């Protein structure tokens, strides 16, 4: 009975310590704000997602074309708007994309959707 109580007390203490850990480690801190993207960062993320989506769609279209699922004429019809979309998304991200290391994603000519 007493062992159980001792263990329970130990458990409670450990849990309290774990919970208090962030405050114990940094009693005073410069910034207590959650590290999150600001409005610009959020917009950039959405744009990046849009760009990746457009590029992925292009890759998938080429893959489908190569495997014969999309006919030549269908491909011609579809590829134009997709390329425009991708270019547009890339353009909007330009300032950031230029700062990143070179080509952000794999070249579009791989057969990887």
């Amino acid at each position, binding site marked *: *009975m007493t062992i*159980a*109580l001792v*263990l*329970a007390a130990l*458990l*409670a203490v*450990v*849990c309290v310590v*774990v*919970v*208090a*850990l*962030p*405050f114990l480690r*940094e009693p005073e*801190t410069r*910034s*207590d*704000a*959650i*590290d*999150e*993207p600001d409005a610009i*960062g*959020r917009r*950039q*993320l*959405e*744009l*990046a*997602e*849009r760009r990746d*989506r457009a590029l992925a*769609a292009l890759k*998938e*279209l080429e*893959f*489908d074309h*190569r*495997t*014969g*699922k*999309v*006919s030549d*004429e*269908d491909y011609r*019809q*579809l590829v134009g708007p997709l390329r425009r979309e991708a270019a547009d998304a890339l353009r909007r*991200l330009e300032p*950031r*994309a230029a*700062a*990143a290391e070179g080509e*952000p*994603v*794999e070249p579009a000519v791989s*057969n*990887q*959707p």
Partner: protein
Amino acid sequence: MPELGRAALVVSLGLIVYALVAGAVAAVTRRRRLAVSAQNALTAAFGSTLVASVVLAVALVRHDFALTYVADHTSRALPTVYALSAFWGGQEGSLLLWLLVLTGYGALAVWLNRRRARDLVAWVVPVIAGVATFFSFLLVGVASPFQTSPAPVDGAGLNPSLQNPYMVAHPPLLYLGYVGLTVPFAFAIGSLLSGRADERWIVATRRWTLVAWTALGIGQLLGAHWAYQEVGWGGYYAWDPVENAALMPWLASTAYLHSVMIQEKRGMLKVWNVVLVSLAFCLSIFGTFLTRSGVINSIHSFTQSSIGPWFLGFICLVTAFSIGLILHRLPLLRARTQLESLVSREATFLYNNLLLVALCLTILWGVSWPIITEAVHGEARVVGRPYYDFFLRVFGLPLLLLMGIGPLIAWRRASLRGLGRIFAGPFAVMVVVGAILVALGAGSSTPGLVAYTFSAFVLATIVLEFARGTRARRALSNESWPAAFSSLIGRNRRRYGGYIVHAAVVLLAIGVAGSSAYQHVTDKRLAPGQSLAVGGYTLTYRKLEERTRANATEIRALLDVRRGTHELGPIKAGKNAYSSGPSTEVGIRTNYLTGEDLYVIAEDIGDDGTVQFRVFVKPLVNLIWLAGLVFLLGSVTAMWPDAREERRLALRYREVGAPSMQTR
């Protein structure tokens, strides 16, 4: 030791409530240290729940009958592995398992995303904690596994017919599935709460949903196999409310897995996806409510307990909260893109969703019908098997066909002429197969024939997809066929893993169609020496054998099986007589080449040595179990980590300066 268990559960409750409150405050006021503290609390809650679980497990193994739960569900003679499986054998223990898995999943999900989605995780923690609060509260206040009473000399024991490997595997797998659906739900709700319009929640929970969905699917197949092999009434699914309780969230998750692809590719259906993931989660809670509350006349139900109203209240709360939040954030979720063409992959996915959700809701309606009619008319009414079978066919068969159509249509828009070219081959296969089947006599069942021909169509499209892809890969890289094949799959795991899963579903459809629409059954009472004929087999009853074991007397009727002129050997079927009652042990003879089963039930063994037999011939039934293995293979392929994808994601987040954790 029960004091330690009780204390640990109280500590868990405290930690979880702290995680809920502190986490919510931290998310709203954007306080970092408090958010991390709440996150730690969730992890600590897992630790504390684990302590409680270990206490219960040890008590079960050591036959500590001072614990009411142990006394109710185990006995001294019970083998250790089944004593352990009694952990989830009763109300309180299964609630503890649920909480354990939930806190474990929660801690893991939050930890895995601590860098990439810091601000999102800040909201996910209180949501998971909110769900966990409910279960934790039940365990502390309403259904404690650590209740003690004067210890009896020996426990009540586990029903002998539950002492089989299925009891060890089936419930935990189902729980991994049910509880796993909480994670995508929490991330979706967290994303809504944080007011973000990005897709990080989908990226973060993609594999979680797959894992939960797979566990739920395999768990159900195990349950079906259990019913077929051990319970022995000749079937594998009875549309019992508890069986449906697992099927409904599985169907909703299947719909979600497809529609989330549309959001990824086109940015559409954001509202629909959040609705679906909430539906899947609510159905998982509803499912466990059905199993426990005894509110529906089911052979699976627990004792009529007081726990039902609590669950009902929780479900209403969660549903209301989800609906309210979705409505509130509706402007955020409105997509800019819309459906361009009705002949596109998006459109087929939409139809797939419609059919899956329709099937899910009709099952929900059928399950709830007794409750509704009782409330409205004062008299409960039940729907029978024909209701479920009808809708399974009406919604399921078109779904089967769609599985073959969807992958062949391009995104956005497909021209009809291009479609004609693509579908010509599989369509031809379908017609030829159909003609052959009719010639072989499959026309006796229209739904069966339709299922078979649709399956042929889908299989043809899947084979073509693999072939075309491999050929294209070869053209690019000049590899050999096998190398091209494996690199094709390696580079497109989700797509081809998905195709393998589709193949599994087709196998399942063929197995179900064969064993239900084309089965043969005969009932006959035989004296030794007499025979019966069924489905091309002739069975001759020879004699009865009796064997006495430690806890049972085994009686078996021995029969010789003959097919045409071939002697196929003996088969045994009979009963085990336990102290608590008899249990049927069926005899199954599997033809591994055709997948056909000869299924013998010795229903009644007379004192005069005559036996009442019920014999089934079930064509293709073993395809169902094979489908389970293929399903697992496909799912694992689809969820296998992809280094390329990981790099791309890391790059994306680095580019936009998303939150990353410096070593603090």
